[in-house]
């Protein structure tokens, strides 16, 4: 199962290494990781996407909680939430395909943020499914490269699901 885990941490040097070391030391892979300051500049929020069965993820969240610099851990599996990821895609559609490509970008509410002699750079934001669908659709047009920010997630207001 893919889990999105948000980790509220003290904004100190070395914290990222403690968190990532916890994954690597147990042979767990991090699929994506994004870190940024929160409203309190002393606190940062990490959003980590990882894959593992329930027992592994339970162990990961407990171990994260055990780290001294970790303030709070939320596994969004149990929480109603919204999530987004931003991707920049450089694609090089052939001359005849350009209109089609731009139309698709528009449908997915992507933005062209740069264009050169041979390529466009599209900025697209969305959840996992939307981004996967978009990438799938424009693959035939020729993707040169893309970069992803990693997922960020936030809980919906007051709609906590009861734990099973």
């Amino acid at each position, binding site marked *: 199962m893919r889990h999105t885990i948000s980790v509220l*941490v*003290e904004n100190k040097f*070395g914290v990222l290494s403690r968190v990532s070391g916890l994954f690597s*030391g147990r042979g767990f892979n991090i699929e994506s990781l994004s870190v940024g300051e929160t409203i309190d500049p002393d606190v940062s929020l990490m959003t980590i996407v990882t894959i593992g069965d329930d027992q592994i993820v339970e*162990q990961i969240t407990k171990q994260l909680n*055990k780290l*001294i*610099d970790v*303030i709070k851990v939320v596994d969004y599996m149990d929480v109603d939430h919204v999530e987004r990821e931003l991707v920049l895609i450089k694609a090089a559609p052939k001359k005849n395909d350009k209109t089609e490509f731009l139309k698709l970008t528009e449908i997915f509410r992507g933005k062209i943020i740069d264009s050169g002699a041979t390529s466009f750079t599209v900025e697209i934001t969305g959840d996992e499914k939307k981004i996967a669908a978009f990438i799938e659709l424009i693959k035939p047009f020729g993707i040169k490269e893309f970069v992803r920010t990693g997922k960020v997630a936030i809980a919906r207001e007051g709609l906590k699901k009861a734990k099973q």
Partner: protein
Amino acid sequence: MRKSGAEILIECLKKEGVKHIFGYPGGVVLNIFDALYDEKGLELFLTRHEQGAIHAADGYARASGKVGVALVTSGPGATNTVTGIATASMDSIPMVVFSGQVPTMLIGNDAFQEADIVGMTRPCTKHNYLVKDVKDLAQTIREAFHIASTGRPGPVLIDLPKDVTTGMTEFKWPEKVNIRSYSPTYQGNKYMIKQAAQMILKSKKPVIMAGGGVILSEASKELTELAEMTKIPVTNTLMGLGSFPGSADLSLGMLGMHGTFYANTAVQNADLLIGIGVRFDDRVTGKTDTFARNAKIIQIDIDPTSIRKNVPVDLPVVGDIKHVLKDLLKVLKDEKEQWGAIRKSWLNQVDAWKKERPLTYNFDKKIIKPEFVVEKIHKVTKGDAIICTEVGQNQMWAAQFYKYDKPRHWLSSGGLGTMGYGFPAAIGAQIACPNKVVFDIAGDGSIQMNIQELATAVINKLPVKVAILNNRFLGMVRQWQELFFKERYSHTGLDVTPDFVKVAEAYGAVGLRATTPDEVEPVLRESLKIKDRPVFMDFEVDWKSKVFPMVPAGAAIDEMIFDEEVKEKSKKKLKAVK
């Protein structure tokens, strides 16, 4: 008052109640050692290797319950501590280690004697710090001691760049520690405790499995009360030896790979297993899906990550063991159950297993059996000594054949299994408990891993007794080679073993030797008379002796192998009796 970082360090240690530290000097900690030179309230014991310093601090902590403290220099001084820190981490021992570091402006430049010790020890400390400003020093030390000694204890490392310890600042001792992201759970959940009491009431064949957590939580009294009241037999993990009196009727001794037949059999037949301060290590469980196969499992532990890590648990109680057991006792007392009556048939069954296959070995008149030496140590010390061990066969025999009746009398590297731990740990324990008899039960392999600490013991007049079970082999590995590798003894024979008597004498210690069983007790008694220096006792033991029972790695814990020779003998005896 303005003070230097080095002076602040010393003030803080005194405020934390530290009296003894273990260490080794070097370039970037010169000024700290200089500040210690005139210090009366704080004694530093100079070991002969940084690993010795860490194990000594560890032994000091295990024997006394206080936080062990060590101070070493940067680079190799710091890296030499890593094995000791990992040892303490695996066994949850409270410890604060101060390492020197190159000046902050040189960090990351590959300066002379620079090592990223914070990076290296991150996975084997409970927490660690690099202090970058002398103004943060006092607060950091306060936090380190708090973290090391509360919750599930563990080692904390503080890296001190030279310019931090030479820098000056106003010193103010922070009275309170408040770490918003760290608050261990002490009180167990009331509902869970009530559930646990119900499970105990309903069970017909319960077993308590008590581990090192009981000792760390100082809960031996509560554990003993619980077991005696509810008439539940108790087995100990290696780390838990002494948490419940080993000579009590309800004691099953140790369980696991080299556990007793009756402990392993009882666990496999139990309908309820109450794990208290244990983490279900693989050496205890054997094949996990067969472990305690008929039992519901209750697990009481302060560390939520220990719960359900290795085996599924039916009822977890997160909290400090002492608190939880007190609450549990209260609930159970209200039940006014006739415990003796409801446990009778189960206890009879357990007794039958005890009689069926007691812990035994094949005594020989001519050759010293290592188990015999351990039994004699128990006899001459009246079971009241602090016993440290190395790792291997010596450790297992010491666990099996000495009965530990009190907590903090058994000091052994359980988790990491560090050879070379016992002797320096014994030095630390002797410093913590000057009036106690302290033994290190060693093998000829392990003792050579930190033999240089003889100098530390001699110069400090520490009467540590080292009983070397000398079989001229790395015995435990040899045992595995004999049983599982067709007797191909690849690199386990220690053909050149030093004359340990002469080694001891060369350092100014006493060396004794026993070559026949008759000599064992006199040698041990002789060692007890020596009060002003360490003693090495070289016991030339049967190299063929193996540790039994034994559960092969990956088997279920009731699939034990026994010493066939012993079995044959006992059969003959039985026939003779008939």
